[in-house]
């Protein structure tokens, strides 16, 4: 297989990730504290106030998926009693721990000093940290974020989160780190966040151009990297999103599409899609190629919103530091109810002038996958655009059936084509 060609911003991000892994694995030398926390609803700005390095287990599972390590880890976890139906991020993490807990830089992950569970919309997260707590015997701080079951948040919900921040999370982090909380430091980080968020939104919305200068799914997962992980609130993230914006602007100016893994600009964009659900990580490149080979570009996706729905207007607000953290946690895509998700997807189809909605349903993620077929039918009904449904998994390679996925994708693209021909005839 040929060498994968990456956009310059992807290489910049790779360096940033490497530096963060270095910071995590060198904690014994540097004396820095390490937290484990999850992507949706993560409180990175707050952790920065305590000089705590952020380690994200889902990101480790993704890394292991893309490096073809997760399959064995998952099977090891199953041998130790975790059933086939359990989230494969969890099993990849458990399996990695059993195999020496080696980070992508080849050094062992140290024990975390704190488990910060700042989001509970996914109950698997809670169980996952229960397992980790048992393993590491370290303090666990839990921020309960109420689910937006009625489609919106309330003042009560916000107050409830702020109260927990004040009474549980901040004192807990002070205790772990030995550093006194400084709200001005938090404000500074939040200002940094907002700057980077502006550019992220600009980049994601560039998918409205024709041709689209970005792939908002396969490229999008790179673009959200720094802001969804250990870099939100840092000058590094600001620099990254400045560079990314310049890169995308250059493609808009020259009417170029995104760079595909084989190194060419993807300009022959025949189908514009909105995608719901995470990608498959174990066959990421092969999966992407199934789209780009057929001329399908993703112009908007919901997965790039699981760590914050900035395109709906939210920005971290330095003037209301704790309240803004509460609003951020409440507003993540994964904390939205099904009707709201339908509204968002239908809006994307209209605003991004997409040909339809494709759902990649994840086998081992029961909480997120539930209701997706109903969502697809409803989006089809509202927009009049055809939907399609494929099934893969996050990091379990056994659940990726290339022929089956390709068959469904090609059928879907040809269906769109046929519908266009039909419409053209009728007109």
């Amino acid at each position, binding site marked *: 297989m040929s060498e994968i060609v990456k956009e310059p911003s992807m290489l910049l991000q790779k360096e940033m990730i490497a530096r963060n892994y270095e910071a995590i694995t060198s904690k014994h030398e540097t004396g820095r504290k390490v937290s484990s926390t999850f992507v949706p609803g993560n409180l990175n700005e707050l952790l920065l106030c305590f000089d705590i390095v952020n380690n994200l287990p889902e990101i480790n599972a993704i890394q292991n998926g893309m490096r073809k390590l997760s399959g064995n880890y998952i099977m090891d976890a199953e041998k130790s009693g975790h059933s086939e139906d359990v989230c494969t991020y969890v099993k990849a993490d458990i399996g990695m721990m059993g195999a020496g807990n080696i980070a992508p830089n080849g050094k062992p992950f140290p024990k975390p000093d704190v488990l910060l569970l700042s989001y509970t919309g996914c109950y698997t997260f809670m169980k996952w940290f229960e397992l980790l707590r048992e393993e590491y015997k370290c303090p666990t701080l839990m921020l309960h974020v109420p689910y937006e079951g009625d489609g919106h948040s309330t003042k009560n919900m916000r107050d409830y989160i702020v109260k927990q921040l004040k009474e549980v999370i901040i004192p807990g982090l002070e205790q772990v780190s030995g550093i006194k909380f400084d709200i001005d430091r938090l404000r500074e980080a939040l200002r940094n966040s907002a700057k980077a968020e502006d550019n992220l939104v600009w980049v994601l919305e560039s998918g409205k151009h024709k041709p689209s200068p970005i792939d908002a799914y396969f490229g999008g997962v790179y673009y959200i990297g720094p802001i969804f992980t250990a870099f939100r609130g840092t000058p590094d993230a600001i620099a990254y999103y400045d560079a990314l914006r310049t890169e995308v602007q250059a493609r808009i100016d020259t009417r170029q599409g995104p760079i595909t893994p084989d190194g060419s600009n993807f300009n022959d964009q025949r189908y514009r899609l909105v995608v719901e659900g995470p990608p498959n990580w174990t066959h990421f490149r092969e999966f992407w190629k199934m789209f780009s080979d057929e001329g399908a570009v993703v112009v908007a996706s919901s997965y790039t919103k699981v760590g914050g729905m900035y395109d709906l207007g939210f920005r971290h607000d330095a003037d209301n530091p704790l309240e803004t953290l509460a609003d951020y946690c409440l507003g993540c895509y994964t904390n939205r109810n099904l009707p709201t998700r339908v509204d968002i997807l239908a809006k994307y189809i209209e605003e991004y002038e997409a040909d339809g909605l494709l759902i990649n349903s994840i086998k081992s993620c029961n909480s997120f996958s539930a209701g997706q*077929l109903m969502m697809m*039918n409803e989006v*089809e009904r509202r927009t009049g655009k*055809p*939907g*399609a*449904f494929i*099934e893969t998994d996050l990091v379990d390679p056994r*659940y990726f*059936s290339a*022929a*089956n996925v390709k*068959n*469904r994708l*090609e*059928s879907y693209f*040809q*269906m769109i084509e*046929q*519908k266009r*021909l*039909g419409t053209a005839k009728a007109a």
Partner: protein
Amino acid sequence: MRCFIGIDLGSTTTKAVVMDENQNVLGRGITNSRSNYDTAAAVSKQEALVDTRLTLFRRALEAVPGTADTAEAVLAGLERNFRHIQFVEQLEDLERTCIGNVKGPRFAGREKPVIEALAETFRRLREHSATQFAPGFRRKSDFFRDLAGGDFMHNGEAVCREAGLAFDLILNIYDKSIIEVENRPPAGDIEGKFVRALEMGSLDQSLIAAPVKAALSIPLEETYVVGTGYGRVRLPFPKEHIRSEILCHGLGAHIMYPRTRTVLDIGGQDTKGIQVDPAGIVENFQMNDRCAAGCGRYLGYIADEMNMGLQELGPLAMQSTKQVRINSTCTVFAGAELRDRLALGEKREDILAGLHRAIILRAMSILSRAGGVKDQFTFTGGVAKNEAAVRELRKLIKENYGDVQININPDSIYTGALGGAAFAVRAVLN
């Protein structure tokens, strides 16, 4: 004449349909996929072109006064002769291949008696072949492998016994050789074989020779070929000649029954629920994921497990008086559940009835995910030939969707290839 060809490369069989530019079906061909899609595509296409010739003969004979009553019999005779010539030709290839494979330490010093035994076996096969293609003879299969295989076992064993040789010796050669022969591209010269078939003694040539020869002289131009099915990427075609099998099944069902709105296709390893619009364009579809539970292949395993032929399952299930509930349509668990039920004293026919219901229940779930069943409903794929599956489907459609017109075409196995051929016509004419 311009021919538009659709080829459906399924996991079990490969089908081809030839159409004229008015979307009239001229010919159909089928062969086993033999895990070699290139050969399977070539063979099925040739078979469909042979069938096309027969259609042209039929048309030619219809124009001859006084042949109305005898045309079908004449055509049947012509086809039998043709098939016989084709069979003997393949048999000769098989014999040459077998003899060529008599080598290596296993045969050291025994080459001569083994070759003699093979020659004698094939002589008997050739001799018996006339019976297999005689009027009124019911062949259990039209695939060369099945026809030659049965006869080889029977005659080869007798020859070896007489010669004092172990049958294993030549059986081993046969197994190796049949794979080589099956995977060779088909021999050409269809027209020449038809001329020889015409000249074989059994046909009265006075009235038919001229029209048949005239029909044979019509050139069949392969104007456009569309490939579909699981093996479609293996076809040596440019990408625009490849269509998804879901689109082809949708359009094929529409051509067979223009008022079709919902299609269920149960093939070897796929179950698909497809919704089509009034023009036959797919609006929505759902299919099974990588697990082939409840598909045709599942029935194949069950047949093996019960030591029965695949075609015998349906009729036996129809004799059931009590339905046994089968929980799993998983192919892997099928054998275990089957033995479990037999151990509990359940009758084979009752277990089979339960198995058929389980398959259809799974298909119903896929259909409901694809948006339910709308009038008219067309059932396609190999499983549509199974009467027990059809019976359960009718019951469940009635229970869940009320009175819906259910269409099942005897040629439903060709639905995907039919859609492919129609796409070929559209590609050129639109």
